[in-house]
């Protein structure tokens, strides 16, 4: 039996208040917020974060046979972006890494292919949705990523959700399109697409039910996603799908995350189901249907298992949504390169050496240092000769990416080059040993203090000559404070 072993969703820290668009332009905008990836994030880094959460949440969901990465906004073409994620996760070289690129449908496509395949496959999908200022895409789009680990089990005891089956439909029509290199999508008159999607959605829904042998009333929750908001609303209403809970939360506060959205919605709903089971409010065996409308339609059916109650998400999507912080519209426009602000008058970074990065990939991508076997001193980056005692070549790898730490001292650098100055920089002491000076991210300069807790996050420091410089930064640990009614 195929199904889901674990899942993780990643929602970046920043939010754009949709009304801020109207405040500036007098038109556009809307209610609620959208998620905004940091200036140092791209679909690859968000994919890494989602995959890390999936691994942390699901004990026993590794090792993987393959890592598949789907996005409509790949940081590289020709070069495999999944290879970067592979390196950041420290996967074995014998794990295959493939990109599914281009169309937003590639996210659900990769998920379906994995469910119909064999072996353990991590399906990571990420997107970064752009639109011109005042457009609907600008405010209704969102940034985010999801990682779903798909695998097989002789019985359903290993799976948190078993895959029951599904169906697909494909239709050639131009509803939403984007030429390579364009920063925005274009859309056809929306009534045409709505007509097509309602027909295609209804068709796969019916065929899907037949395929899995279920009646509509046997499906406990139907989730409809897609790039065409009006068609999604129409189909939701037509087949009695859910439009509240996580679906509504994501729509109101995160936005439509394109390629990642079906997996993100599915992950959020699995998290709800897990919490419901743990609280004794929901029982295992509930059927979920995920429908995605994009150049056709797909439906996937899942049945939750009793393993779901034991599955403990490392950080739920809901927690990430509520701990976000506002980003002003001016900064948003500059991060999205819709406006160009004065850069710092410092030389731009040089391009990364490919061979040096390859040689040091465990350090650069995996944040793995070394630990002296005698003194236990942790060396970041790894060293051959120990700083304590001078032992030679007597060290073990010291993976630090999942270590939290505390700020020892910090500074704000107004002069160094950064795509979004100033640079906030801190000396971090890791729990369990080790110190490293790190750039901080996802915070406002002036809000940190000595002793603050931080954790590691995979980021893009800069790009030069088309080569992206990925490395790790530290971000404040966000704690959800329960609001008592």
């Amino acid at each position: 039996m195929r199904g889901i072993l674990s899942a993780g969703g990643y929602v970046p820290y920043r939010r754009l208040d949709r009304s801020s668009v109207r405040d500036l332009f007098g038109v556009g905008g809307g209610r609620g917020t959208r998620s905004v990836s940091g200036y140092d994030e791209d679909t690859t880094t968000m994919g890494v974060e989602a995959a890390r959460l999936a691994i942390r949440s699901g004990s026993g969901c590794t090792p993987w046979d393959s890592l598949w990465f789907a996005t409509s906004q790949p940081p590289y073409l020709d070069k495999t972006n999944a290879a970067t994620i592979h390196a950041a996760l420290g996967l074995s070289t014998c794990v295959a890494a493939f990109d599914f690129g281009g169309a937003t449908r590639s996210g659900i496509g990769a998920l379906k292919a994995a469910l119909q395949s064999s072996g353990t496959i991590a399906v990571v999908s990420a997107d970064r949705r752009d639109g011109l200022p005042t457009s609907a895409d600008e405010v209704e789009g969102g940034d985010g990523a999801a990682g779903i680990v798909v695998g097989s089990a002789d019985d359903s005891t290993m799976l948190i959700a078993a895959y029951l089956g599904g169906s697909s439909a494909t239709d050639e029509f131009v509803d939403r399109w984007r030429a390579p290199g364009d920063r925005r999508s274009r859309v056809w008159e929306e009534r045409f697409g709505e007509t097509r999607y309602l027909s295609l959605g209804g068709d796969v829904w019916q065929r899907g039910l037949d395929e899995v042998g279920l009646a509509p009333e046997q499906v406990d929750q139907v989730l409809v996603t897609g790039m065409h908001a009006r068609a999604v609303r129409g189909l939701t209403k037509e087949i009695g799908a859910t439009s509240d809970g996580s679906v509504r939360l994501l729509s109101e506060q995160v936005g439509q995350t394109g390629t990642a959205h079906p997996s993100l919605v599915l992950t959020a709903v699995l998290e709800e189901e897990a919490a419901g089971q743990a609280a004794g409010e929901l029982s295992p065996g509930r059927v979920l249907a995920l429908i995605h409308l994009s150049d056709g339609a797909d439906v996937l059916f899942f049945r939750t298992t009793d393993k779901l109650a034991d599955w403990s998400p490392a950080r739920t999507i809901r927690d990430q949504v509520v701990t976000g912080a506002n980003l002003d519209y001016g900064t948003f426009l500059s991060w999205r390169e819709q406006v160009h602000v004065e850069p710092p008058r410092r030389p731009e970074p040089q391009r990364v050496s490919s061979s040096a990065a390859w040689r040091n990939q465990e350090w650069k991508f995996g944040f793995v240092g070394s630990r002296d076997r005698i003194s236990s001193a942790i060396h970041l980056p790894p060293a051959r000769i120990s700083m304590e005692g001078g032992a030679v070549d007597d060290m073990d790898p010291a993976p630090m990416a999942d270590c939290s730490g505390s700020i020892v001292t910090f500074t704000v650098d107004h002069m160094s080059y950064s795509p979004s100055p100033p640079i906030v920089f801190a000396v971090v002491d890791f729990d369990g040993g080790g110190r490293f000076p790190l750039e901080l991210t996802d915070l406002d300069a002036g809000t940190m203090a000595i002793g603050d807790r931080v954790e590691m996050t995979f980021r893009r420091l800069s790009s030069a000559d088309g080569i992206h410089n990925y490395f790790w930064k530290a971000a404040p640990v966000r704690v959800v404070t329960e609001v008592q009614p």
Partner: protein
Amino acid sequence: MASRGIRDRVAIVGMSCTTFGERWDVGFDDLLVEATLDCLAAAHTNMNHVDAFWLGTAQSAMSGIALARPLQLHGKPVTRVENYCATGSEALRAAAYAVASGAYDVAMAIGAEKVKDGGYQGLNATLPPGDGTARTLTAAAMFSMAAPAYAAKYGVDKDVMRDVLASIAQKNHFNGARNPRAQFRKEISKEVIIGSPRIAGDLGVFDCAGVADGAAAAIVVRAEDAPSYTDKPLYIKALSLVAGSGSGLIDPNYDYTHFPECEAAARDAYRQSGITDPRSQLALAEVHDCFTPTELILMEDLGFAERGTAWSEVLKGTFSLNGDLPVNTDGGLKSFGHPVGASGLRMLFETWMQLRNEAPPDRQVPIDRGLALTHNLGGYPGEMLSFVSVIGTELG
């Protein structure tokens, strides 16, 4: 194994220093020619008489040819050296050791930097190709982390700390205003210093050294040959260099309130020169005040003040022109400016002026003690190298 030093074996018999500043009208070669000719004149000698040359420049040129070409040296050994911001001192070490070894009779050390052709403010090093994980912080940011750490460790109130750092900048600007070669020749009030725009952490523009073009040079000979060049030679009592291992950056025990490399270099230099109480034995000290907190901490690392007391000594004026131990009498990096390759030799040049009683009268300090110290560092807290020299007017 020992750091024996070359006490009293080598004498400085001629020195020069160009004006430092935004010298848009001169290039690197011009700076080298100017400093060399002035230095040769000061030693009453000529180019052919110099047996070997060491050129210190951090990022303006590569190889000894950068000096041999503008000076049109023929058949001479010429070497370029680099050791971060202690590059000028490194040229002096090489020249002095070459003479002390007996390999040459006369050697010249010259340090120069042309930094103002880059088009950017501050110093901008070009790094070798790498994996992209190296820090890209400014030196200001790295040193800015020392001030709050020091204040916290010794319980210095934030406003008092601000006053202490401003006092250091004010003193160095006061001294620099009396130095016709300095980049900034203006006294600056503490209010202006404190109110200046922030560069990094709590450090404002006036907490940072000026970045300047400039060059300085020295001619060294065997001590016994010195009287044939000048009646007021200076003798090298100690030369010490310590390069840190960089482990301070990753060592959880390092607290950013002291610079171990500087402490170690000072210990070595005092041992070589027989100094036991620098505060009372030195007539003056030129130290690497790249940022105001650096000078504060150096007062303790170099043994001029007990740990945790330098801040109050600064407020008492201990290191002012008329204080117990005048520090940076020429204005320091702060107001003299910092042409990286030249600064170490510029510091030495001030001891040359002061110990020979040739400094401008309004900043000449008493020289009865007969000894001066230069301290030149490169790098940052946690990843630093440090040079210390002791120079004296008398043998023995």
